[in-house]
């Protein structure tokens, strides 16, 4: 593997970190502050995209910062997988920043400077996690992200957010210190390295029971991925302002969890070892349980954001499910779902937030007939829902198609049923919202008066249109992401 040494990954991580003092110092001038966010976000995206051609050629960009101990350093390595995740996160950061303006100003929220500052810190940590060269670096950014998100989750500083924040910490910090840290130290103790390699770091040091325990410690320990039973923090975290739910709890934070598990499966254990010990099925079973249960719970939720949260929990497990198939198609379908789900789900969250800003409504039962007043929002919601269900013409179809092919390839027909049943459930909990929105009877208006269109402000509506369009675009042009995964995982 050809590698190039470059400071670009470091710069890409740091740019949104260094902008924080600027944000704080311009706290009295919201417009100046917001422009700085765009400048930083754009520089970040440009830096990341400038590395894209090299990565697509199959090369990797590396940078070692600090050598802590032999085989354990703080270092970056940009490969296809990390690149895919970084592009998704950095591009959606810019879109979310526009949305934040509309949402936070629309609701006249307090502490906006604190909000944007921790948001910038969170996105820095996300990119850091995407570019991590080894488990130690990944853990470092994972923890920074956990802590940076806490003030965002508890932004309202009231009793509810205090309880949610507590739950968030107990689950996220508790599992990362209690499970991942010992597992990581054990890996280092046994092998003397934590570097991600496609062959895995273990030679023959692990027995099957030992490997199983270690694997489970990682899978449950990265609780940001929302594997049951360590998922309840995610619905609780929905008390946060919607931009946080949209970017962090549909894209950045939760996918750092999934991404970490993917890295551990493919880079620490290695597909080979997992196959030999038949551990793929173990992970797949865990993921399947989460997929089905979370979908069922989502059906029963009346608060829109909570329904979306349970849907996210279920969809995150698709990714883990796909990777655990250990077959090329499965890997491809799983990993590309990181991108496909991101664009679909963020659209849905943007819509939920836009509805709240425009009407103050949070519960699905109150949204009947609302689509006639907010046609753009509900159209986008429809597209986002299609993406999550996995229907054409959205990118979600591509990942689900590959996942199903993957189950056939790995000859796990039973698990194919899980995907099909879950798709049904997804349709059940999303499509009625759209249907009732457009055709249902509105509680607070009679049929005779003509309907006036009353959308949320433009800063809210434009981002959700953008992500909806991209969601459709990915159906037709998934090529870049597909190629990135192929170079990243060395599959044909």
């Amino acid at each position, binding site marked *: 593997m050809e590698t190039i040494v470059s400071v670009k990954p470091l710069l890409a991580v740091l740019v949104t970190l260094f902008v924080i003092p600027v944000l704080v110092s311009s706290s009295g001038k919201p417009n100046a502050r917001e422009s700085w966010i765009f400048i930083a976000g754009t520089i970040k995206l440009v830096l990341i995209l400038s590395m894209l051609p090299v990565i697509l050629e199959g090369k990797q960009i590396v940078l070692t*910062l*600090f*050598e*802590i*101990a032999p085989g*354990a*350093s*703080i270092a970056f390595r940009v490969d296809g997988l990390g690149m895919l995740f970084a592009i998704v996160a950095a591009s959606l950061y810019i879109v979310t920043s526009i949305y934040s303006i509309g949402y936070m100003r629309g609701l006249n929220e*307090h502490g906006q400077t604190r909000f944007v500052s921790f948001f910038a810190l969170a996105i820095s940590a996300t990119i850091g996690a995407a570019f991590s060269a080894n488990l*130690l670096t990944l*853990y*470092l950014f994972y*923890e*920074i992200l956990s*802590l940076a998100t806490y*003030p965002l989750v*508890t932004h309202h*500083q*009231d009793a509810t*957010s*205090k309880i949610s*924040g*507590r739950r968030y*910490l107990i689950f996220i*910090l*508790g599992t990362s*210190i*209690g499970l991942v*840290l*010992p597992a990581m*130290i*054990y890996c*280092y*103790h046994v092998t003397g390295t934590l570097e991600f390699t496609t062959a895995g770091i273990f030679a023959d040091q692990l027995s099957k029971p030992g490997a199983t325990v270690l694997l489970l410690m990682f899978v449950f320990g990265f609780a940001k991925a929302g594997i049951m039973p360590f998922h309840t923090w995610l619905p609780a975290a929905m008390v946060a302002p919607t931009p946080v739910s949209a970017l962090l709890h549909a894209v950045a934070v939760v996918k750092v969890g999934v991404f970490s598990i993917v890295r551990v499966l493919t880079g620490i254990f290695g597909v080979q070892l997992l196959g030999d010990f038949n551990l793929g099925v173990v992970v797949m079973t865990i993921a399947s349980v989460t997929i089905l249960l979370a979908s069922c719970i989502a059906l029963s939720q009346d608060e829109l954001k909570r329904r979306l949260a349970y849907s996210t929990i279920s969809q995150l497990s698709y990714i883990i499910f796909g990777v655990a198939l250990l077959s090329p198609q499965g890997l491809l379908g799983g990993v590309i779902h990181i991108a496909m789900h991101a664009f679909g789900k963020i659209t849905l969250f943007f819509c939920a937030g836009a509805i709240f800003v425009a009407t103050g409504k949070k519960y699905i039962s109150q949204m009947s007939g609302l689509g006639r007043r907010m046609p753009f929002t509900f159209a986008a919601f429809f597209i986002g829902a299609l993406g999550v269900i996995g229907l054409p013409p959205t990118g979600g179809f591509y990942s689900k198609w590959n996942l199903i092919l993957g189950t056939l390839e790995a000859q796990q027909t039973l698990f194919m049923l899980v995907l099909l049943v879950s798709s049904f459930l997804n349709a059940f909990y999303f499509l009625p919202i759209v249907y009732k929105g457009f055709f249902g009877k509105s509680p607070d208006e009679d049929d005779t008066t003509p309907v006036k269109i009353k959308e949320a402000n433009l800063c809210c509506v434009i981002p959700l249109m953008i992500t909806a369009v991209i969601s459709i675009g990915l159906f037709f042009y998934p090529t870049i992401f597909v190629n990135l995964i192929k170079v990243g995982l060395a599959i044909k």
Partner: protein
Amino acid sequence: MDNYPALIVVTPLLAALLAGLAAWIEDRLSYPIALMGLALSTFFAFKVLMQVIGSGTIHYRMAGWAPPMGIEYTIDLLNALVLLLVSGIAFLNLIASYPSVNQETNDRAASFYTIYLLFVTGLLGVTATGDLFNLYVLIEITSLTSYAMVALGDRDRGPIASLNYVFIGVIGASFYLLGVGYLYLKTGSLNMADVAHILSGIQGSSTVLVGFILCMLGIWIKMALFPMHVWLPNAYTYSPVAFSRVVAPLMTKVMVYVMIRLMVTVFGLDYIFNTLHLADAAVWLATIAILAGGVMALAQKNLKKMLTYIIVCEIGYMVGGAWMGNQLGMTGAILHIVNDALMTFALFLAVGNMVYKLKTIDLPDLKGLFGKMPWTMAGFVLAALSIIGVPPTCGFFSKWYLLLGALEAGAYHFAAALIISSLICAILFFKVFEICFFESLAGGHETAHGVVEIEEAPVSMLIVSGLVSLSIIVVGLYSGTIVNSIILPFLK
């Protein structure tokens, strides 16, 4: 240049005398003298560390008398490092103390500075000396000055805490002196290197065994290893903040240094781990200390007292690491001397700032502090994260070595205790953060949503606290360098 080892210790001693004398003429003179003395001492310590790294151990003979008759200062990598740590922290603390000393000691600033300098002299001497009896004398100097300092503090509780401290401190000192007596009986020498040389020939001797155990018990009492810790929480809580800021990070750490010095240099690791069979018991004791310290900290309602119990917990880290019987554990213990000193110092600096403004440090009185003292709280949060062990703060990296050492030695109970104590510390500190973040200011009618006036401590205090908090991250990132260039060469 040649006299630097002695000057490190003698400069603060002279400064103490001068500061005391100068106060007869003019009270205000004592502060600059004290500051100058410690600045010089820090400079000498830095020079000596560089010299030792460059050209190896320095043997300095007091007044030219040759050992074993004369007193020898032996500066190797380990104590050069600790000397710099002690003098540096003492110097920085003096800067931060200036605004508050008069107020805290009822206008006895001059006597405060004199005793403070004598205390630091004692600590530096303990670290520098290569003579067992001289060590006892210097320990007593630090202890006597501490008794005086504690009594200077809280008018109601200070004297009683001091008395309690005196009783237990004297017992500890007697144990140590008795142990040295036994060793002197057997070897006829007090010079560490000389004693070590003689002891290597008489390893089976039960007199040596008794001497060793007595010395260890004495040191353990002085370092407040659970259950010999009972003097520490009250003594540190009720002493003036300006003093607890320096005694909390340094006193116990210097005693850990003494323990390691006795183990490595005087008795030899070979004797301790192969002839004696006390290591398991010591590691168990450390395990219990960690858990007990953490649990007792949970019960506290006063922030300063809570921190003192965390010190009790951290002592367990270092004792356990040193007694682990492998290089990784010892590396972790030595690294933790530096790290724990820094993070405890940072925490107490933050506490000092809070006390300066709030006049109280009970947990319920800290409401709304994030808004009121953002800089102080930023420093506090960083130090707290280091105690919890979040990378890239330094606390994570010493924990890393300690955990690896525990795994190598098969001491899973100790590893489990480390993980559990991380979790307990997370609970402890987030409990504090919650109070500071969610609840509105005590007494005031501002709400979390209103604009809170920033009322920070004086700039000098903030700068010191900011510097030390940043050093936590810097030292963390460079822990690989510290281990490779100082700790590992020392242990070879």
